[in-house]
């Protein structure tokens, strides 16, 4: 739990570069995302493609060249199992994304860039995650 200072600093910096890029790409503006989803400006594909290209190097090459990360930790795998529930989650996420043009990263960064309306979206995301946890917790018994 206790986060090393170097680790905390690098993590904040990673988030800040990510956020700066989100703002630069205009994806913090819900209307830009909707313009993509209605296929009037396909810019989001370039944003996603560029981000994935950089990370193909990070995820495919770096773990093969280095035993540990720069801070001496293990490279972690994303835990994910594709099942019916996950697919339903993807559909619900898509409905929300298509409705308001916001997703979790841009909601945080857009708030930082001075759009207070995104507090409403963030409250909604927190509420949705809470509802999911209460529901999933009950299913687990």
């Amino acid at each position, binding site marked *: 739990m206790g986060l090393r200072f170097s680790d905390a600093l690098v993590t904040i910096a990673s988030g800040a570069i990510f956020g700066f890029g*989100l703002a630069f790409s205009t994806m913090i503006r819900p209307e830009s995302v909707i313009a993509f989803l209605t296929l009037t400006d396909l810019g989001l594909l370039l944003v996603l493609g560029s981000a994935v290209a950089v990370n193909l190097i990070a995820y495919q090459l770096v773990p093969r060249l280095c035993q540990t990360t720069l801070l001496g930790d293990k490279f972690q795998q994303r835990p994910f199992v594709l099942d019916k529930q996950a697919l339903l989650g993807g559909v619900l996420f898509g409905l929300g994304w298509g409705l308001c043009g916001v997703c979790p990263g841009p909601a945080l960064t857009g708030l930082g860039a001075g759009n207070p309306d995104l507090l409403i979206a963030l409250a909604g995301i927190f509420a949705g995650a809470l509802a999911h946890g209460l529901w999933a917790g009950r299913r687990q018994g």
Partner: protein
Amino acid sequence: MAFFPNGIAHYVIGGLLIGLGVAMLYVTSGRPGGVSTFFSAAWSWLLDRPFFRQKSFLESRGWRLCYALGLVAGGALYVAVGLPVSPSAMPAWKLALGGVLIGFGARLGGGCTSGHGICGMASLSPGSIVMVGVFLTTAIATAWVLRALGI
């Protein structure tokens, strides 16, 4: 270029920076930098229910909070250096309802545009590639229907 009426430079440069931030997190700490888990893990500070007290949330909430604060700071920095932001006028009800769907859906679906879209795709995870197809298709269909209805 009808596909890109606003040019392409800011999209490519922005995307490379987004990628750089996510890659930096992975190369330094080995963590896939998905954003949406933060919104579940944060509840572990307030609630005692077993779901929110699960080990993976307790172990990751510290760095996830740093990462989220970094994302906010990145937006503030962008404005502080004098770069332009166009105003947005998304209706509050869309942000509220959309937010709930996004929060619930991302957690049920095991990730969002950053977790599946960037980290999962860069991991060449077949499941993540399917998920991106599912939420992208659903979102495009939703936006088209709403536009056709004039909502």
